[in-house]
């Protein structure tokens, strides 16, 4: 069948087929129309705000959903489409956005787009030298237009009618009619004088109006003042520059660094987002942070992840083996109790441990002091704090390992043990040659996942001791228990000017590559176990 025919079939056949299923088709089309309407409305909002990456993603997803639902030959995909939609929106989009951010200067001082910065600066006004400040009274017409009566400090009066040049007037003239005690006209024909309370109501509207003609326009600056304010920053399209009219300085757009900069090097605040290419990566690889404590931090990260997995697995397996024995009484209750740490939110568990290990008040430390007269400096010594963190992570992690190994133990065929027993194997030999290899085949990938998770286990490190104790004499602040991700956090969020998302994204990508390499290596290694299982 040619492609043309397939296409034709895709569109034409269903109508014939569906003739008996009109309600079904109608429902689907209505649903699709609703979804499309929603998507269009949402796209409008996104385009208005200039969120282009999301616009592209939403468009692709909506088009995809439409095609899948309109083409009968793609109908199997319909069952996949919710999953695909979620995958694209929740997994792919953040990844793409992170990668994109790594190549920009998105950070504090560069949060806005260039257009936003131009609009923002256009709001600023200045008072030219010698310009008068006036108090004002406004009159509102029935059509929502305004007249402004201005009084200067010297008692001069100006009348500003919207759309006409401002003119000096004298209140004594007949056309103004009766005056109040301050010499301000009570009303104009067709216009209602605004009381102070009314003025508050309309002040936003009034504040947007420029009374009079260029260049002598009058603007309201507060409830009590109006003056010949001038727009300070004007964007010139041809020059791609912002002109400061108050000081007569030209700030050209520096699209490499993302800021409007004068010839003398002064930059306007705020800056804007620009793509910066490999700058963030260059900064990372030439950073003193890499020369200094990076090696120590990296080694501890690997050690932390490895020992976390090894200790939790060992304890979890040990407990699982003990409670696997059906002769043990009350094993279900004990097993349930042992799972409790898994049910307590990690954040709370970590903070409780931090309190218990506190050298002055913590129950662990005070008890140890009472019994043996000494307690380790859990939080302030480089080695003891590493041990403390591994202990806390062991407490947090063993129930998971116990659960998965308990399950995996059931899957090992019993006849293997019988055969081993017949051959006269000891319990240790049975464990070492049957249980462990077969167990690793099934839980191996989970161990690797656990390793990867711990490699980036920010919670435990940061909540327990914020990476401390600090390492002395480092070029950038770092702690003895800092792992790569908490060290990154220090570099990108605690160290420089507030939040540096671009830099953080770049570091994240590097860490991702590192973790990937380690994971690939791990998977290669675990194939050894698979070979064993095949030979069993």
């Amino acid at each position, binding site marked *: 069948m040619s492609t043309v025919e397939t296409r034709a079939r895709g569109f034409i056949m269903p109508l014939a087929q569906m003739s008996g299923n009109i309600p079904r088709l109608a429902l689907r089309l209505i649903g699709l129309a609703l979804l499309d309407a929603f998507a269009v409305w949402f796209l409008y909002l996104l385009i208005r705000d200039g969120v282009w990456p999301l616009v592209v993603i939403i468009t692709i997803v909506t088009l995809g*959903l439409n095609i899948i639902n309109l083409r009968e030959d793609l109908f199997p995909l319909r069952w996949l*489409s919710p999953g695909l939609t979620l995958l694209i929106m929740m997994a792919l989009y953040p990844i793409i956005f992170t990668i994109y951010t790594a190549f920009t200067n998105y950070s504090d001082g560069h949060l806005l787009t260039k257009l936003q910065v131009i609009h923002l600066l*256009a709001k600023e006004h200045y008072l030219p030298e010698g310009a008068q400040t006036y108090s004002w009274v406004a009159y509102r017409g029935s*059509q*929502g237009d305004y007249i402004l009566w201005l009084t200067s400090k010297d008692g001069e009066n100006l009348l500003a009618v919207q759309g006409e040049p401002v003119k000096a007037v004298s209140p004594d003239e007949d056309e103004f009619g009766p005056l109040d005690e301050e010499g301000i006209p009570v009303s104009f024909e067709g216009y209602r004088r605004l009381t102070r309370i009314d003025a508050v*109501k309309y002040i936003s509207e009034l504040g947007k109006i*420029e009374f009079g003609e260029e260049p002598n*326009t009058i603007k309201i600056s507060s409830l009590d003042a109006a003056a010949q304010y001038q727009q300070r920053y004007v964007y010139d399209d041809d020059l791609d520059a912002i002109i400061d009219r108050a000081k007569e300085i030209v700030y050209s757009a520096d699209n490499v660094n993302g800021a409007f900069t004068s010839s003398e090097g002064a930059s306007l605040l705020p800056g804007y987002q620009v793509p910066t290419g490999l700058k963030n990566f260059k900064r990372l690889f030439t950073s003193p942070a890499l020369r200094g404590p990076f090696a120590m931090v990296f080694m501890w990260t690997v050690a932390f992840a490895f020992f976390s997995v090894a200790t939790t697995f060992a304890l979890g397996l040990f407990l699982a083996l003990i409670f696997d024995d059906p002769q043990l009484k009350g094993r279900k209750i004990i097993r349930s109790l042992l799972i409790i740490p898994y049910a307590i939110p990690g954040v709370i568990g970590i903070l409780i441990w931090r309190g218990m290990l506190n050298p002055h008040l913590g129950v662990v430390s005070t008890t140890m002091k009472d019994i043996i007269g000494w307690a380790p400096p859990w939080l*302030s010594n480089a080695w003891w704090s590493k041990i403390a963190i591994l202990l806390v992570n062991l407490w947090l992690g063993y129930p998971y390992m116990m659960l998965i190994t308990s399950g995996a133990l059931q899957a090992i065929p019993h006849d293997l043990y019988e055969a081993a027993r017949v051959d006269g194997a000891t319990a240790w030999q049975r464990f070492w040659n049957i249980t462990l290899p077969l167990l690793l085949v099934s839980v191996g990938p989970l161990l690797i996942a656990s390793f990867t998770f711990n490699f980036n286990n920010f919670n435990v490190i940061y909540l327990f001791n914020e990476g401390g104790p600090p390492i002395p004499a480092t070029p950038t602040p770092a702690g003895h228990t800092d792992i790569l991700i908490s060290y990154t956090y220090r570099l990108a969020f605690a160290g*420089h000017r507030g939040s540096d998302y671009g830099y953080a994204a770049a570091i994240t990508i590097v860490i991702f590559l590192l973790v990937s390499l380690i994971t690939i290596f791990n998977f290669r290694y675990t194939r050894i176990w698979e070979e064993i299982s095949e030979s069993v």
Partner: protein
Amino acid sequence: MSKKLWMLVSFMLIAVLVITACAPKPTPTPVPVVEKTEAPVVPTATKPPEIVETEPPVAAQLTIWADETRAPIIEALGAAFFETYGVEIVVEQYGFGDIRDNLKIAGPAGEGPDIIIGAHDWLGELVINGLLAPIDLGDKEELFVASAVEAFKYEGVLYGLPYAIENVAFFRNPDLVPNAPTTWDEVAQIAADLEAAGTVTQGYVLQQGDPYHFFPIMTAFGGYVFGLDEQGYNPQDVGIDSPGSIAAATWLDTMVKEGHLTPDIDWDTMHVMFENGSSAMFITGPWSLNRLRESGIPYAISNIPSGPGGEGRPFLGVQGFMVSAFSDAPLLAQTFLLEFVATEETMQELYEAGGRASAYLPVLDATEDADLAAFGEAGKNGLPMPAIPEMSAVWTAWGDAVTIIFQQQQAPDEAFMNAAEQIRTAIAGGQ
């Protein structure tokens, strides 16, 4: 049939979920960006609109982000404001610290508030991101504590209307230390005597690695963080390794070496030790008052002891109202603040709810709370906490240096010189 229907529902549901997750608060009446492109130089509405309106449309509304302590007060104010002016005040409650972070996201997206409550040391971060609009206090400026107004200025421009000031002061247990020590050497002596007599386990307690509480000691020895000139704090002049700062670090080191200060004391431990009488002196702020009053321990508040460099000067933290640069109604926002917030009644309520010295002079002068008056006294020579963004490069490095001395990992001068180097590197953007 039902299967497909469910499919559709789930499509919609997912789409809605995803879409709502991405758009925190899509407003149905958006302000089109296009409108902003019109150069404001062109006079608007040269021709009156054709439609004759009978009753003026008051679409005016102000959104205010406040923390849980201030939100009820502003809500009550909002009701009064609505009654008088017909302008609706919408109060959205956030955690105090979350206000800043959320403004950074919501402001540029056009979803943000008109007014926020916040601390003056956010200024740098918010101003460099273009998130704040200047405020003009007009004639009312003289009703505010001068240092509080000063703290809300960034590069000479005022961005906030202050309502409260907070700073730390020196606390002692008057049963154990009848007279307030006036110098840090005296503190060391009293601590040594009390410890020798076995009255307390530790005479004076200081939280480990907390530069905020260490700063008053540092200033007493003549140290500083950033040099202060007419322009404000100068990020190029880092004072962590100045002779005064190192002298303070050396004093700290001696205290640790002689056993008068011990490592691993956190905020909670510091409190418990004072509350159960196992220590007699510490530095803390007004946030501790409730806790101390409840514990029933006798306490007295005095000025920070001085040292060879002069008086000990605490950091001043000022809280206030700020107007978002992305507000559609900046004039209305400012009017609300000046007409409704900067009044004696409101300021009195804010003072009573917050438990901090008021930044509004008429209320401050009428303050009867002796503890807060003592804090006010201790804060008279205070220095506003630097609001420049470079300050974020200081906290970790400086705190680590203090911790390193507590843990005796390095000599005090080396620790502080290294911290200063770390800060300079970070400010230069070299990391």
